[in-house]
Each structure stands twice: as structure tokens, then as C-alpha cells.
């Protein structure tokens, strides 16, 4: 498992151009965000123009990775080591982050122009930039100190973004999220403390060689796991998720559901694959909780009246799919073939869900903005008036349900293959029930949209491009299934 995360020595030293690309990828979002606070962009084109270096840096890192394989950076500052690595998975997640961040940033000016002018709206830009920088750092960092810094920056920026709408409900939910996230990070820090006390180092590569299974490894894995599970909204610690999304701005919700919770999950898997090398029970407990999450999240989304709660609860269920895969990735009694299939399926599901969920939040946000209602019943009549937003919702839902040829289908196919090969029948059952429940809540949503009985109310016209951005994201999730070859090749080059 460790080589898959690229925790091995690199063949080549990074080139000068790679240094520059890395610097731009990590720092540019934050700097652009600060610039956005000083001069808030009113249109989408300055955002696109300003964001261009970030996209170029991502492509440049992809090209250097294709040429020279795994790359490592290490610095020593006043006795404290900082280390980064760029492997196939890192490139893939970095590109995902940059493009979804791009979509969210492009979406924002239109939204701010249409909504009532909020005094706090200019703060959205630095927070969004800081969030993207912190996320990029999480995908690349390989020592526990840098990961801690990045995780905390991400958490604080996420809280700040979610409360910007300024309604009492948002503030209260944000306060709860803030306190829980801070306590979660203390649990993580306590785990780091035990690791540091026992092995005296924090770089993941060195730890991977030194760690021996034992009570210290288990307890620190449990502490870090608890903290990260709280931040990732893994069932049963998901209670804070729906209220937080309830009154947040659309691009913020999209970024949060697509990327922020995934970062904690990524970290959880990476740390556990180092600390829990031969544990049978821990991944199985996660998988059991995941199966419950699929059912519980699905039922919540099925029963709710609020559009945003539906989308947020569906995140809980979709995270359940990823949790169910944990035994295949971490348990010692799994054959290499099943593990390789599960590895591919896990990341494809994660990335596909990131694109689809971002698209879904944007489409839902468009519908809510246009109708001025936040409930499912308020959707009545939208099938005729807003067919494009509904189409986006539908395409995103195809990925969530796992119908061919979307990324969700390819990922689930790989996962089912791995589960059949390792005879995890109950996991297969959970996967199938989850798909049925997803279909149930998605079709319930569409049923409301086809009602024609609604009183004619005013439809707010959307800014140009708001639907197109959501559509592009949804189509990207779709295309990831058809062109799964590209991400899977990158994933296989993980440690090479």
C-alpha cells in the first residue's frame, strides 16, 4: 500500500521548471484570493484570466511527472523537516482540485451580482484561495507537521466560507462546525504526539519503514482516525454536515462537498496504510459504518423536504461507498489483484463524486436562486422553465447512481469486481442498496419538478454561464467514466 502513495525514493531530482510549477500551484491561489479581496472581480473573465497560471502550473506538473516520474522535495528549516512528493495520485487530485476550484471561482461573480450585495462577499475570495492552496498542499505533503498546517488552514478557511452568508442559522451551524473541527484536529495532534514520542520523526516515508504494529501505532491511528473522521463527516459523525450547507453560498457548498471532506478521507487512508499494516478489525469497522452510512444517508435524502439537505445527505451516503472499500485496501488478507482493482475504483469514485457533487450543488443552487424556494415542492414547474438546470442535476445524478457510462459506473464496476474476487458479499449488498436508494431520492426530486400545479411565480433569470459551468462539471464526471483510461494510468504510475 505504501508504494501506491509514492512514499519511496525518486529516481530524478526535480527540474527548475518543476520547482516553479510547484510554487505557483501552492501559492498562486492564495495570492489571487488576496488580490480578489482588494479588487473584487465583477465579471467572470478577470477571474478566468487571473486563474490561468494555476491551471498552467497543474498541466506543467502533469507533464513533468509524465517525463520523470515520482518527484520529491525536502527542506530543513531550523531543525524541522518539510517534505513534499508528487506521484500519480497527487497529480490527479491536484488537477481535480484546480479545475473544480476554477469552476467555483467562475461561478461566483454571477452569483454575487444576482444576490443582494452582501458586505462580506469580498472575503469569499481570500478564503477560497486559501482553501485551494491548503488542499493542494494536503495532496502533496508527506510529513505530519505540514499536513497538520494544511489541514488546519483548510478547516478554518472552510468554516469562514460557510458562514459568509451571515444568517443566524448559518452562523450557528458554522460555530458548531468550527468547534468540532478544532477538537477533531486536537485528536489528530494527540495522535501525532504519540507517533513523535515513540519514533521521534514525522516524515511519512521514514515512519513507513520504522512503524511496527503495537499499541502505540493502534492508539495513534485511532486518535488520528477519530479526528479525521469527524472532519470528513464519516457516519456517524456527519451530524454537522447538512446544517452547514443549509444556508451557505452555492460555490462554497460545491467546494466543500467536492474537496474539503475528501481531503480528510485521503489523509485518513494514507495514515492508516502506514500505521495499521496488519489490522483486520479497524478497516472492517469503518466498512460496517460505511454500509450504515449508505442506507442512512440514502434514507435521509429520500425523506427530506429541502433541496440542499437532499444533496448534502447524498454526500453522507456516497462517502459510505468509499468507507466500504477500506477493508479491500487495508486488510491483510486481500489478494493483490483485488487490492489493485479496489485502489482504482476508490479514487475514480472519489474524483467522479467530486465533479458530480459540485455540479449537483451548482444546479441545485441555480434552481433555488431562480425559483426563490429551498424546498422540493418549490421545484414544481421547473421542468418547463429551467430544463437546463434540471438536465445538469440529472447528469450528475447518473454518476451518483452509477449508471453507465459515467465515472460512478466505472468505479462501482471496479469495486464490485474487487468485492466479488475477495468474496465480500455484504459490501456488494450495500453497494446495490445504495444505488437503489440514490435512484429513489433522485426520481423523487424529478417528480416534484414535473408538477404543473404550481402557482405562477416569478423566475429570477440566471447570469450567463452559471448553468454552463455546472453542465461542464457534470459532463466531466460523465466523461471520466468513458475516458477512465487517463486517470487510471496516472494511478498505476503511483510509485514508479
Amino acid at each position, binding site marked *: 500500500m505504501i508504494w501506491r502513495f509514492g512514499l519511496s525514493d525518486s529516481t530524478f531530482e526535480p527540474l527548475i521548471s518543476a520547482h516553479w510549477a510547484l510554487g505557483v500551484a501552492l501559492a498562486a491561489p492564495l495570492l489571487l484570493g488576496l488580490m480578489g479581496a482588494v479588487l473584487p472581480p465583477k465579471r467572470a473573465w478577470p477571474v478566468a484570466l487571473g486563474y490561468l497560471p494555476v491551471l498552467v502550473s497543474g498541466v506543467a506538473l502533469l507533464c513533468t511527472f509524465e517525463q520523470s516520474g515520482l518527484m520529491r522535495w525536502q527542506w530543513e528549516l*531550523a*531543525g*524541522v*523537516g518539510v517534505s513534499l512528493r508528487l506521484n500519480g495520485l497527487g497529480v490527479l487530485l491536484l488537477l481535480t482540485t484546480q479545475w473544480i476550484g476554477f469552476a467555483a471561482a467562475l461561478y461566483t461573480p454571477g452569483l454575487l451580482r444576482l444576490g443582494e450585495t452582501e458586505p462580506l462577499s469580498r472575503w469569499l475570495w481570500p478564503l477560497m484561495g486559501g482553501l485551494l492552496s491548503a488542499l493542494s498542499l494536503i495532496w502533496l505533503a508527506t510529513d505530519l*507537521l505540514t499536513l*497538520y*498546517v494544511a489541514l*488546519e488552514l483548510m478547516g*478554518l478557511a472552510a*468554516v*469562514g466560507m460557510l*458562514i459568509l452568508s*451571515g*444568517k*443566524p*442559522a448559518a*452562523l*450557528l*451551524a*458554522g*460555530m*458548531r462546525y*468550527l*468547534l468540532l473541527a*478544532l*477538537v477533531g*484536529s*486536537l485528536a489528530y*495532534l*494527540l495522535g*501525532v*504526539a*504519540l507517533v*513523535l*514520542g*515513540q519514533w*521521534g*520523526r*514525522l516524515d511519512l516515508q521514514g515512519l513507513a519503514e520504522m512503524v511496527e504494529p503495537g*499499541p*502505540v501505532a493502534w*492508539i*495513534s491511528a485511532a*486518535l488520528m482516525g477519530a479526528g479525521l473522521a469527524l472532519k470528513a463527516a464519516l457516519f456517524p459523525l456527519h451530524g454537522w454536515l447538512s*446544517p452547514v450547507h*443549509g*444556508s451557505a453560498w452555492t460555490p462554497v457548498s460545491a467546494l466543500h462537498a467536492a474537496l474539503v471532506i475528501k481531503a480528510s478521507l485521503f489523509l485518513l487512508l494514507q495514515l492508516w496504510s502506514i500505521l495499521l499494516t496488519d489490522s483486520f478489525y479497524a478497516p472492517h469497522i469503518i466498512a460496517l459504518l460505511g454500509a450504515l452510512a449508505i442506507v442512512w444517508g440514502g434514507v435521509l435524502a429520500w425523506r427530506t423536504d429541502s433541496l440542499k439537505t437532499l444533496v448534502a445527505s447524498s454526500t453522507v451516503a456516497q462517502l459510505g461507498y468509499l468507507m466500504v472499500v477500506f477493508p479491500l485496501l487495508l486488510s491483510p488478507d486481500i489478494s493483490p489483484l483485488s487490492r489493485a482493482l479496489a485502489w482504482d475504483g476508490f479514487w475514480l469514485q472519489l474524483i467522479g463524486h467530486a465533479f458530480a457533487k459540485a455540479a449537483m450543488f451548482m444546479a441545485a443552487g441555480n434552481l433555488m436562486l431562480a425559483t426563490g424556494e429551498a424546498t422540493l415542492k418549490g421545484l414544481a414547474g421547473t421542468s418547463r422553465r429551467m430544463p437546463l438546470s434540471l438536465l445538469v442535476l440529472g447528469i450528475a445524478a447518473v454518476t451518483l447512481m452509477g449508471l453507465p457510462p459515467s465515472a460512478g459506473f466505472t468505479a462501482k464496476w471496479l469495486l464490485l469486481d474487487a468485492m466479488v474476487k475477495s468474496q465480500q458479499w455484504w459490501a456488494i449488498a450495500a453497494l446495490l442498496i445504495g444505488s437503489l436508494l440514490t435512484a429513489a431520492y433522485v426520481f423523487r426530486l424529478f417528480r416534484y419538478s414535473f408538477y404543473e400545479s404550481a402557482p405562477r411565480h416569478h423566475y429570477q433569470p440566471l447570469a450567463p454561464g452559471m448553468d454552463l459551468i455546472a453542465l461542464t462539471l457534470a459532463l466531466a464526471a460523465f466523461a471520466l467514466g468513458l475516458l477512465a483510461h487517463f486517470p487510471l494510468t496516472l494511478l498505476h504510475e503511483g510509485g514508479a
Partner: protein
Amino acid sequence: MIASFDATETVLALCLTGISLVCLYDRHLVRACCFFVAFALTMTTAWWHIGASWLAVVEFLLGALMTGLSLFYALGLFLPRGASPLIRDTFVDVWPRKVARVFLVLGWLVMLGAVIRFAIPGLFNAPLEQPLLLAGIMMIASGLGAFALHRHLVRRLLAFNILGSGVFMVLVGVAGPTATAQALISVGLCIAWLGSMLAALLIQQLVYLAGADSMRGDGDLGERAR
């Protein structure tokens, strides 16, 4: 065991434990925040005593000064609105919820005990040799307890800060005051300060928008406001 008995450390550890308990369980919020500043100053002395001078500086600036100011801002002491509505925590919970929370805390304490038993065997065998480590664990235990038991948002914020200090103490206790440990703790202090500041802004805004009753912090108000 007598030979390694350090009087200063023991006094510091007793002070830390005592002040943190008062700070956590005092219902008078201004007094509790004053005690928190005293607590942070004691932490500064403790860092100084174990030779982590950099940490002492950071703790004084961020822990005592900035976090203290954030807490007093949260209580509304700097606003010209007259008497702040946040003077006492008057919320009383019904019994079943209290009992549930007590069980939650007991569960946490059992887990904490297991951590000490297996992960820090030195402390388990000779608990009095490292009084500051013991104080750190006491702070974690009481902080967690307060975080679970209290509803008032200011008191939960205080509990988080004490809990954080306990974690930092344990970190230095198990890893020694190395450069890496000090870097970790400095980052932790920065985050705690930023988090407290954000929370203080949120609390003031909530009190302004929804009144002191919103400090109860449960979902009812959120539902009503929506």
C-alpha cells in the same frame, strides 16, 4: 522516585490543574475568562521552566494576550452597548441529557486511561515523576468533560482552549521539547488563536442577531430561523 521529585514542576502542575478546573466550571463567564488568562500565563511559566523559551514567547503572545482578548471580545466587553448579555451561563439541562453526557465523558476517560496504559507506560508505572505530563492529562480529561457537558458556546470555546493546552503539554511530555515538538505546538497555538478569534466574531454576531439565548448552540434556533 524521591530523587527525581521536582518541586517547581509539581507546583506548576498543581496550579495548572487547579486554574483549569476553576476556569472550566465557573458559571460566571468574565471570571472564567480571567482565569483562562491566568492559566495561559502559568503555561508560559511552565514552558519557560522546561527550557522551551520559544514556546513561552508564543504562548504569552498568542495564548495569553491574543486569545484572552478574543475571549473578552466574545463576551462583549469592548462594545459600547452597556451591559453585556453574556455574564453568566444560566442554561440548565434536563436530567436525561445530563446523564447521557456524563456517560459519554466516562467513555472518553476510559479510552484516555487505555491510551496512558499502553502508549505511555512510563507514566503509568511512576505517575509522579512527570507532574506536568500528569497535569496535561488532567487538562485533557477535564477539557473533554467540559466540552461535552456544557451547552454555552463561550464555555465550550474555553473548554477547547484548555483541551488544546493539555494536548500540547502531553506532546512535550512524551516527545521532549525538541524543535519538531515546538514547531507543532507553535502551529497548534496559532490555530487555537485563529479559531478563538473566528469563534469570538461568530459569538458576537450571533448575540447581535439572535440574542443571548442563541448561545445554547443546539439545532432549535437554526430550525426556527430557517
